[in-house]
């Protein structure tokens, strides 16, 4: 114990740890009926860390290009615990996106995007989009049958854009068909380009949270300051955050070890697509919207219209801090809540619809 404290003093004199500690103790986190939602950003962050670690581990054996499937097969069946690392990476990817969705909607309904937190909302939205591209590019990397056809179907979305759509799709694919070139460029995107975008953005996002502190929902704001409660960030909130991380780790371990990710058959462009092929769940909503518009309006026009509508909705969602009228007054803006509920129900209904349509 003595030795530990002398090491601490030594480090403190050089790094100013005490200042940091005092700062963390002084920082307070509001505590109220809805404060459970504060953990979801942290949970998303935890899964991102898991992704980074397991991703680097997979990088050690994975070979993009023509060897993609074979190297994934080796990881899954020959390398010790390779199946576990791969499962953890796949599961954590899905859990990360799910956690970000929860985080986003809780921020939305708690109106945490209002002044001065607009940049937090925007950076968060970009982080979500980058994460979805992470998911899309990562899904192809094992180059199994499912990944192959899901990517094929997924790239039909840009393909449906008028005039430039076809060009974009071929450029992304690196050819008219999904092949080893596609894997190679998706790999570059997945392990170099996207992390290079994601990490600085994440830093910005976290810096904003630290700068402005946790937002409180309008219901809490309405209370007189004396009735509002808060707890110190350190150690109280951090302990709870860590406990949440521990729970997240448990859930991940359970899923990854009990429901290991299947490898499936190698991709073969000559084979007919297996029945019920579909993109990952977080793309199912947009997939279904495109399909519906394609059915309602014949020809390429329908899909293009669906795409435009979807993009418009996304832009509206993105710009909510600018036109939510309650931004200054701090009152409840009911219609923004209704818009949020509307968006959430559209997302849920189309996703369920898409899955029901598969059978």
């Amino acid at each position: 114990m003595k030795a530990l404290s002398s090491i601490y003093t030594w480090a403190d004199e050089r790094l100013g740890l005490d200042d940091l500690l005092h700062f963390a103790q002084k920082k307070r986190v509001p505590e109220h009926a809805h404060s459970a939602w504060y953990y979801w950003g942290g949970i998303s962050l935890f899964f991102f860390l898991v992704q980074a670690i397991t991703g680097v581990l997979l990088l050690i054996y994975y070979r993009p290009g023509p060897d993609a499937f074979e190297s994934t097969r080796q990881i899954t069946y020959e390398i010790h615990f390779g199946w576990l690392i791969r499962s953890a990476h796949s599961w954590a990817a899905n859990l990360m996106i799910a956690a970000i969705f929860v985080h986003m909607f809780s921020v939305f309904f708690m109106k945490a995007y209002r002044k001065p937190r607009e940049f937090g909302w925007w950076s968060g939205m970009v982080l979500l989009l980058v994460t979805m591209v992470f998911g899309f590019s990562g899904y192809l990397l094992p180059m199994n049958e499912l990944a192959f056809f899901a990517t094929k179907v997924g790239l039909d979305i840009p393909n449906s854009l008028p005039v430039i759509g076809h060009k974009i799709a071929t450029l992304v694919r690196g050819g008219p068909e999904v092949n080893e070139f596609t894997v190679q460029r998706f790999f570059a995107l997945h392990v170099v380009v996207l992390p290079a975008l994601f990490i600085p953005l994440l830093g910005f996002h976290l810096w904003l949270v630290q700068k402005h502190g946790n937002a409180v929902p309008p219901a809490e704001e309405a209370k007189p300051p004396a009735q509002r409660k808060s707890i110190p960030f350190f150690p109280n909130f951090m302990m709870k955050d860590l406990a949440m991380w521990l729970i997240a780790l448990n859930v991940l371990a359970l899923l990854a070890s009990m429901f290991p990710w299947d490898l499936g058959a190698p991709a073969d462009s000559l084979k007919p697509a297996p029945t019920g092929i579909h993109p990952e769940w977080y793309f199912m909503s947009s997939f279904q919207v495109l399909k519906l518009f394609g059915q309602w309006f014949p020809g390429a026009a329908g899909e293009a219209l669906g795409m435009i509508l979807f993009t418009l909705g996304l832009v509206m969602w993105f710009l909510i801090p600018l036109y939510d009228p309650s931004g200054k007054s701090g009152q409840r803006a009911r219609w923004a809540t209704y818009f949020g509920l509307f968006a959430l129900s559209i997302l849920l209904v189309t996703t369920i619809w898409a899955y029901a349509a598969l059978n």
Partner: protein
Amino acid sequence: MNYPFWNVPHIGSGWVIGLIAIFHVMISHFAVGGGLYLPLAERKALREGRQEWLDIIRGHSKFFLVLTGVFGAVSGVGIWFAIGLTNPEATSTLIHNFVFGWAIEWVFFMVELSTAAVYYYTWNRVSAELHLKIGWLYAVASLFTLVIINGILTFMLTPGDAWLAVAGTGHEASRFWQAFFNPTYWPSLFLRMAVCTSLAGIWALVTCSRIDGTQKPKLKTGLVRWSAKWLVPSFVAMPLLLGWYLWQVPESQRALLSFGMTTIGTGAFTQVTRTVLIIVMTSATIVGVVYFFAWRSPTEFSFSHALAVLLLGLVATASGEYSREMLRKPFVIGRHMFSNGVRERDMARFNAEGYLTHSPWITTNAPALARGEIMFRGECMACHTTDGYRPMKRLLAGRDREAIGNLLGMLHDYKPDSPYHAFMPPLVGTKEEIAALGDYLATLSQPAVAPDTAPAKPALARR
């Protein structure tokens, strides 16, 4: 095949029991542990004159009455419906053997439900001493429901030699007590009682989390910490009890734990081993989470924290029940009846006369493929489905008719050194029946276009 087969697509009929049972265990163990928690908390509050505690305990007893009396009771009956449909042969054996056991169980069950209601409705209406006595009566009655049902549950894993000696003679019920106090009875009872105290603490934390920590910090601190302590004894005793339990499990079943580690070189433990590791991990996490959430900062302990602990408890309980079921493989009643309802002593007869021959559920001139499908339903679908849980489509993927025939032949031979001997029942029936089954399975396996490029070990990680 005396009974028709209940076909539940995708999840298989076993999971119907599983889902109801896991839900039921979460509540029934709370009913037993909570039976102890309520009078002990009430006694402590009375002795130390904590009026505020009594109000909370009263609220807790209402929640307790609704949860155990409605959801616990309904799901408990649901289990018996489900097992009767899923495995009628085994259920019939249990009833023939334990009909009086169940009668006793129902007596305690009625007392339990009545006293739970009386306990709640007599708050402040009878004297404190009498009310406390009702609480103790409830505690004893609910404990005895566990004491009784535990005998029947453990019997299925380890019926014991005395009962097995008379199995099939028609005098099984004469070994009632030997079957009841079977080798795993005591370790299982103590293990379950430990789980009961933990769950009582966890559910009490759910109630305590609703107390306003700013208004009544002292009340909340006291109750949260007192409830958190309920987790301590079981987590200290758990490793010992688990060890005792596994020690009483027959060697042949225990081998299922290490089986995967010795045959698969890639570090993929068997399902059951992984599940046991999950139990250990979640149990440790529960202690950590309760320590950080509840003990360290009791006034800030919120409802969602309590739900998180409850979720972990659910994972640990579900894993426990799942691995207990898995440990019994390939039997549904240890060394007597296989998972698919075939009795060990009937093997030779079925092989000679045919599995489908005496079934009233099939016409003798049914086409071969239909007979194959019925064979599949009768002998395989207790554990497998075509496309959902343990799906044949994936497990047999890439195998042609001949490879399937080889595998079936091996299951039929059921040699003691066959590794499937450890966890799969023998395939019984005549040559024609097995051929029909093979033909049917071949329609499921859909031989891959290029079998050479198919992954070499499709089933490895999932066993």
